[in-house]
């Protein structure tokens, strides 16, 4: 099997050690870091996302695969910096105020990272000002909000409002998600998009930034 194929498979199976080893081998053999990223890491995470969507994978498998991907990404990073691979976008992500659920938000971060985005993780229980500050100070171009409680969903609207007040609404794309969220709710509060799971969040963001 060729190295890239082995890396893809190892990520899907969540073998972090093997991923590290094979990424080293690939680099030693002169394969470019960007090629390893685009032809092994990213497609592997896309496949993991698909398996989760289809109910084949659950949270544990997804987390283990994401960890394996990150092990590989860590080795590639020094080579990617300064090369032609720029982050495809910078995403400020958090669970909204009053809400402490972070498993889904973390999966979305990991998938985004696996797809080449730079992540600014604002954690959980993030008040609107946190998002506003991140957009103002850190040149973020995507705001991603997660909510798991019916009662905290409404905080998303407050954040969008705060961004408007600060005159920053047009600088960013806003995406939202979490179990109680729907497309109708996204439309109602004026978000740019809704994604039902982590891999959809990647597809959506790419579409909004016209990257695909």
């Amino acid at each position, binding site marked *: 099997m060729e190295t890239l194929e082995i890396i893809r498979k190892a990520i899907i199976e969540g073998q972090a050690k093997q991923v590290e080893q094979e990424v080293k081998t690939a680099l030693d053999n002169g394969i470019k870091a960007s090629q390893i990223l685009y032809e092994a890491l990213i497609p592997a995470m896309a496949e993991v996302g698909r398996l989760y969507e289809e*109910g084949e994978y*659950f*949270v*544990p*498998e997804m*987390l*283990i695969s994401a*960890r394996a991907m990150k092990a590989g990404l860590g080795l590639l990073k020094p080579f990617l910096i300064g090369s032609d691979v720029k982050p495809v976008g910078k995403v400020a992500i958090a669970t909204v*105020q*009053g*809400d*402490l659920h972070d*498993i889904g938000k973390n999966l979305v971060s990991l998938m985004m990272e696996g797809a080449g985005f730079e992540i600014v993780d604002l954690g959980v*229980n993030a008040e609107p000002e946190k998002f506003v500050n991140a957009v103002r100070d850190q040149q973020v171009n995507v705001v991603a909000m997660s909510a798991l*409680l*019916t*009662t*905290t*969903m*409404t905080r998303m609207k407050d954040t969008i409002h705060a961004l408007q007040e600060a005159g920053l609404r047009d600088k960013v794309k806003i995406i939202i998600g979490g179990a*109680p969220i729907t497309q109708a709710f996204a439309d109602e509060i004026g978000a740019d998009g809704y994604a039902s799971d982590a891999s959809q969040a990647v597809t959506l963001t790419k579409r909004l930034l016209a990257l695909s």
Partner: protein
Amino acid sequence: MKTTFADLLASGRPVVADGGMGTMLFSAGMVRGHAPESWNVEHPDIVRGIHAAYIQAGAQIILTNTFGGNRIRLGMHKLAARTCLFNTAAVQLARSEADAAALPVVVGGSIGPTGALLEPHGELTLYEAVSAFEEQALALNGVDVFWIETMSDLEEVRAAITGCRKANADTPIVTTMTFDTNGRTMMGVKPEQATEALQNLGVIALGANCGNGPAEIEQVIEKMHRSSSAVLVAKANAGLPHMHGDIAVYDATPEVMAAYASRVLGQGARIIGACCGSTPDHIRAIANALQNIDTPIKDGKHS
């Protein structure tokens, strides 16, 4: 009136458990993001009143207001230092209402998940988890049964059971998991796997709670009953909430929950109650529905 869990089961009748605590606290004015356990100290009369209302409605088992009462979960609210206080206060509140009741009522010490993921999926070590559960179980001294609930990871269940046994090996343990993700728990555990693992761990009763509503739990109980003769517990949510203006409304009415109670009894559940979104009205409807059914039950199995 004081009784034991074993005596409640010995009656051979279906047993009625209580309904949601969080929901009741929210409607009493608790704000989102607040730790419900702090109300054991700040608003003891409200918590006691909720226990009394469930007993009045017919609950034979009430659970302490300690679902998020372990130090890891309380730590998310920067309240870890008050772990012991919140739990001991909760036991007193439930105990006093149960013992004063006209009929026998059992107090279950509610133990929910830490909210953190165990290694290798997360950062929490097994040692930290066991210690946190042991600390909570020690503070729950005085309950009739430890009630581990809403679990999604079997490793965390093992940690909780180990912690309980270290704290008090004589108190029986009930464990229920939440099967809300395509018929499995969030961590991918199937009802059959849960049943087998929990039986091997020697719990006195096992089952399912919370989730997306009655229909989901009915399927889970059916699967558990098919694969085991354990005493089964069903505590379904009253559906999922929707926002009506500023208040969250759950869609399952008391009538819907009464129908669920009769059905899930037929599917093999022995202890039946409800979870998030339910109120004493729902439990009254469940108690009435179960009272009108006369199926004597042996060893947890229906004849």
